[in-house]
């Protein structure tokens, strides 16, 4: 129950009826860190969280709190706070009794229980609602009760399982700030599960991207945002433009990729040699429409669809070679405009393609479609 300096997951694995839900998760969590487990649904992120909480026994591996092995402890003896996706508030208890529940279970003196409960209520700004039942609260208020209940006994680790996914967009943004604020003021070590990359980037100190039960990449928000480890992570991190190509020449960290008879220069990520099949990944905001006059990494295209998004426009363009690209720009463009697109070589990432079955859904090289 006491604070730890390090929590270590060592080859944590979980199988469900012959299916691997989580395979060999190695992760060291430092005290005070905010870690986000990120991935599409079914990637094993909730499984990992439940294993940490003790709600799911491990199939293999171990969890260590400093030098103490804890994966054999039942959840009630781990002392971790948890916020559930459905909030899981006790419907028959008032807001105050819900929040005090963890303190009561620890048999703290009455006076201390009262004081700390009141403190937690103030922290989540629910002073006017303490005597209500959860059913009488709005979604955002219920969410705040769930958070207060999970942090009031000062757990050594707080686990959050997609806590914002049941809220509407506006409330989600508010609660995101709230969670960040709480983390900063209480310094709680937090593991946060989400499928929303934006949420993960804005909240976490470190992100763990999972796919099909395996860790794809662990890194800071900036690392994940600018340099995903493979094209699956890139796909998940908002690199909406993905297409297949073939390496014409690799030169250290630079690779020239041939697609649509056009050669584009990009940044090589991972191992591949000349003539290898690769996947190219580009963020919509890294495609410029003011490419007139540029000689390399430029593409002629026609704007097809434009969405107004406030400060920016999101557009879909089709290159002269028949490939469709997503882009974002502050410039005024309209459907039918002829534009010259340009991509900075450092922002055009080139990945080894891996198994062909996985790349099948990606666009072919424009050369092939012609």
């Amino acid at each position, binding site marked *: 129950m006491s604070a730890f300096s390090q929590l270590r997951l060592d080859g944590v694995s979980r199988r469900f009826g012959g299916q691997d839900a989580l395979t060999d998760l190695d992760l060291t969590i430092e005290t005070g860190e905010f870690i986000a487990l990120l991935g599409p649904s079914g990637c094993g992120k909730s499984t990992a969280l439940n294993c940490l909480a003790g709600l799911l026994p491990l199939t293999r591996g171990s969890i260590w709190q400093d030098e103490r092995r804890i994966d054999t402890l039942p*959840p009630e003896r781990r002392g971790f706070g948890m916020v*559930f996706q459905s909030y899981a508030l006790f419907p028959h208890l008032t807001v105050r009794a819900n929040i005090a529940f*963890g303190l009561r279970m*620890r048999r703290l003196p009455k006076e201390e229980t009262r004081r700390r409960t009141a403190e937690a209520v103030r922290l989540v700004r629910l002073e006017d609602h303490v005597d209500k039942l959860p*059913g009488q609260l709005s979604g955002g208020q219920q969410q705040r009760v769930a958070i207060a209940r999970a942090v009031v006994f000062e757990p050594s680790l707080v686990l959050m399982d997609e806590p914002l996914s049941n809220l509407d967009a506006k409330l989600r943004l508010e609660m995101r700030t709230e969670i960040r604020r709480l983390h900063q003021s209480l310094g709680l070590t937090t593991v946060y599960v989400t499928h929303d990359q934006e949420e993960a980037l804005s909240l976490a100190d470190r992100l763990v991207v999972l796919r099909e039960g395996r860790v794809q990449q662990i890194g800071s928000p900036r690392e994940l945002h600018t340099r995903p480890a493979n094209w699956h992570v890139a796909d998940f991190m908002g690199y909406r433009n993905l297409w297949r190509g073939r390496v014409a020449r690799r030169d250290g960290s630079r690779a020239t990729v041939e697609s649509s008879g056009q050669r584009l220069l990009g940044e090589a990520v991972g191992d591949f040699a000349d003539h290898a099949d690769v996947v190219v990944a580009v963020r919509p905001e890294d495609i410029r429409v003011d490419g007139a006059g540029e000689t390399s990494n430029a593409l002629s295209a026609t704007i097809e669809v434009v969405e107004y998004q406030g400060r920016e426009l999101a557009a879909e363009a089709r290159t002269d070679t028949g490939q469709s690209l997503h882009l974002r720009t502050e410039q005024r463009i309209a459907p039918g405009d002829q534009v010259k697109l340009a991509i900075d070589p450092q922002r055009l990432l080139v990945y080894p393609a891996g198994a062909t079955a996985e790349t099948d859904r990606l666009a072919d090289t424009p050369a092939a479609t012609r």
Partner: protein
Amino acid sequence: MSAAGPGRPSAHWRHRLAERGIDRQLILLVPALVFVIALFLYPFFYGLSLSFQPTDGGPFSDYARFFSDAYERGTIWITLRIALPAALLNVLAAVPIAYRMRGRFRGKRLVTTLLVVPITLGTVLTAQGLLNFLGPTGWFNRILLATHLVDEPVRLTHNYWGVFFSLVITGFPFAFLLVLSYLSGIDPTLERAAATLGADWRRRFTRITLPLLMPGLATTFCLTFVLAFSVFPSAVLVGNPAGETRVISLAAYQAAYEQYDYPYASAIAMIMGFVELVVIAVVLAARSRFYTGATGGKG
């Protein structure tokens, strides 16, 4: 939408009636209404008025007769003494089994079927089985005698226990099915949340599951109690109908079909109904002290 046009003057008031829930679909309620009136309300009020028309004496003389006769009056106590413990045991026994049986596991359907089968047996078959199994020469006593645990057969039929076992056997499946559905209605995440907050299984049950289940248990108790209170066949077949299991329905039966005193039988039936109502009222009053709102489950 303008007001009703000249061709269809009825549209306007039809809308207004529909807003108050009066529309053609009400016809669907007619069979239920007919059923209730013909098979419950009419016989009930017929019996009620009959009970106030005794063969001799004033309107309340049959009631007075029942309560002044200790042998008759005692049937209330005899019936309660069988029905209350039987209903309580049914509900209490159903809780741990249903608790273990919620959620999915292999063979659940088989176990549920086995637990529910007694419903299909009927009282007479159950009584027959009890006599064969628990009777003085039944297997149970033969085993006890053979293993020298007892020197003479234990009497478990043709007395209080025979009726009690019969009520447990036939009442348990109802209690189990009801409790199982109430338990499935409680979101299992609540217990997981309590666990992460430091509650061991005992406190998870007493602080979270049980309080949420109590209203369901109260309802289940009422239903199994009513079934047990009107016990009649088993009181005759495996009980001692002249003595310790002379239940109130038996007293009513004897008044009606042995003495042919229908008004007196009706009075006994009314008393029987009143006792049931009192017990149910007490249980439901206690029930209302618990939280009865949504419990987040699938049920």
